[in-house]
């Protein structure tokens, strides 16, 4: 009888909290659908640039499903490789051939090696004499899976925790009544948001430094580019998380509802931050990625850590992240109008 009372109460509470009910029942379906589209994308065919390659070898490579592009000279091809347009360049000169792999994405490197090997075996054994020597543009073939995913995870983990901590503390400011008390002083709404940004900003700097120092120093993650730039991008990403968390907390009644934003806001970002190869996704799906802060943060971090990208490569990402922060902070100032009209 007592158990029944408890059961009935829980059912009643659930039925009254439509939002939690929707999350429990519908959010999993949404997430699963999203995962299907993301993971079901066709495998990415490696893009190989060729220079002076005999026609039969090019044909054999084409048959394996590789994406082929012919270049007039090796300088042009190497430029495309450096710019990330190609995964590998195959240069043939006389009886010798050289395969240069981009090397920052271990999955792509493996795919290139597989198709080249497949093509060689398909040709008759005599042509098989043309065994290319292999060279890596980056990482010397030593880029492992943790290097590739790790640099994105650094950004994601930082984003996740800052989002939650900032969101919950801003929410508590509201639920404990201190927000109303703050607004009963001459403090401007913009000053409330700015104060939060600076106060939490200090801790996000400490957090970013710690995470990156640990990943590089202790876990030995690859770092080709500048540490300072990695720190800057991680900080910008954390600021976007901070402003998004405090903004969304305005739409949560309690901590529980704040946690409900995780599957809706945080988890989908994982799909678009490069843990799954974006190139194979349909365009409409990729467009979703373009409106998520983590997409830009991960893009920049990967560029700096794996491909030694400099400021001139990552400034658009930095601008996007700063734009997101400014947008979220501005919206938050407006959302505070609910608590004081001036």
């Amino acid at each position: 009888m007592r158990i029944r009372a408890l059961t009935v109460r829980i059912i009643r509470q659930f039925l009254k909290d439509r939002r939690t009910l929707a999350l429990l029942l519908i959010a999993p379906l949404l997430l699963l659908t999203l995962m299907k589209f993301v993971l079901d994308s066709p495998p990415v065919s490696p893009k190989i640039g060729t220079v002076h390659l005999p026609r039969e070898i090019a044909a054999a490579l084409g048959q394996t499903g590789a994406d082929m592009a012919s270049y007039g000279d090796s300088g042009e091809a190497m430029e495309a490789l450096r710019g990330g347009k190609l995964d590998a360049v195959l240069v043939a000169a006389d009886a010798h051939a050289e395969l240069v792999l981009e090397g920052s994405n271990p999955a792509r490197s493996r795919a290139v090696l597989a198709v080249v090997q497949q093509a060689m075996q398909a040709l008759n054994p005599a042509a098989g004499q043309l065994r290319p020597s292999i060279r890596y543009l980056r990482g010397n073939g030593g880029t492992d899976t943790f290097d590739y995913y790790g640099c994105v995870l650094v950004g994601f983990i930082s984003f996740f925790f800052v989002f939650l901590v900032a969101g919950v503390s801003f929410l508590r400011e509201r639920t404990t009544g201190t927000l109303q008390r703050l607004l009963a002083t001459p403090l401007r709404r913009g000053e409330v948001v700015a104060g939060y940004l600076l106060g939490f900003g200090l801790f996000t700097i400490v957090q970013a430094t710690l995470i990156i120092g640990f990943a590089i120093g202790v876990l030995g993650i690859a770092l080709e580019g500048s540490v300072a730039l990695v720190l800057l991008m991680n900080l910008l990403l954390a600021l976007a998380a901070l402003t998004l968390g405090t903004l969304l907390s305005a739409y949560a009644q309690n901590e529980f509802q704040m946690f409900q934003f995780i599957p809706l806001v945080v988890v989908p970002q994982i799909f678009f931050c490069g843990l799954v190869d974006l190139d194979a996704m349909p365009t409409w799906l990729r467009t979703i990625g373009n409106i998520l802060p983590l997409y830009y943060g991960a893009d920049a971090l990967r560029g700096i850590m794996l491909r030694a990208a400099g400021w001139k490569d990552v400034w658009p990402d930095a601008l996007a992240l700063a734009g997101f922060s400014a947008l979220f902070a501005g919206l938050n100032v407006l959302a505070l109008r609910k608590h004081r009209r001036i």
Partner: protein
Amino acid sequence: MSSVLSPSSSSSSSSSSSVHLSLDVAGVSRSFGKRPVLENISLSVGRGEIFGLLGPSGSGKTTLVRLVIGLDVPDRGDIRLLGERVPSLSLLRRIGYMAQSDALYGELTGRENIAFFAALLGLRGRELKRRIEEKAELVQLSDHLHKPVRLYSGGMKRRLSLAVALVHEPELLVLDEPTVGIDPVLRKSIWEELDRLRVRGVTILVTTHVMDEAEKCDRLAMIRDGRVTAVGTPDELKAASGSSTMEDAFVAYGKGGRP
């Protein structure tokens, strides 16, 4: 002219005598959605007056207080405070506000809580320190200022909230149910302090549903279902309703106020 205090005469005099008037609420209404919470409220509070808002919970007292401070704006009507139109950010510096729930930071100590709000109101350095000690003394928390507020009892939190409201020595003090959870001895000392503040010219707007507190106000407005049912001194209200106690007067006006 039979009526001495018709609504028109009182509002026309308010502009000329605004120096003596701390708060002037004129024809204020506020609804949330379709539910009217306050209907056509008009009140005037003079400088140095302790003015009570007496009414049961849910009658709209807190909504009226929020309108007076400027946290919310009325749908209709006008509120003037210390000669300025509400809402105004600069006015907030001249108001001390104590909310119904204790809005304090549990992790911080009592001293840190007062210091934070005082800093928002522009107090600095030695002056800030002096004020903290002075107000803590007043609410008898001097020995507990170093403790985190989460260890405070309910009554201690109430007292700390009062100290926060007083720290910048406001011209108008707005207290929403200030003595809930405070023992009778301390309640008495708080009312004595309110009296001293009044003598110094501080205007005090206080909501309550405790009858013996209502008796201590200079004037009272009885609020019921979002309307003012009567305004006057405690003695006037008792006399007019033919009651011997405040409680009976409250019940009598409550009945009359019902549509």
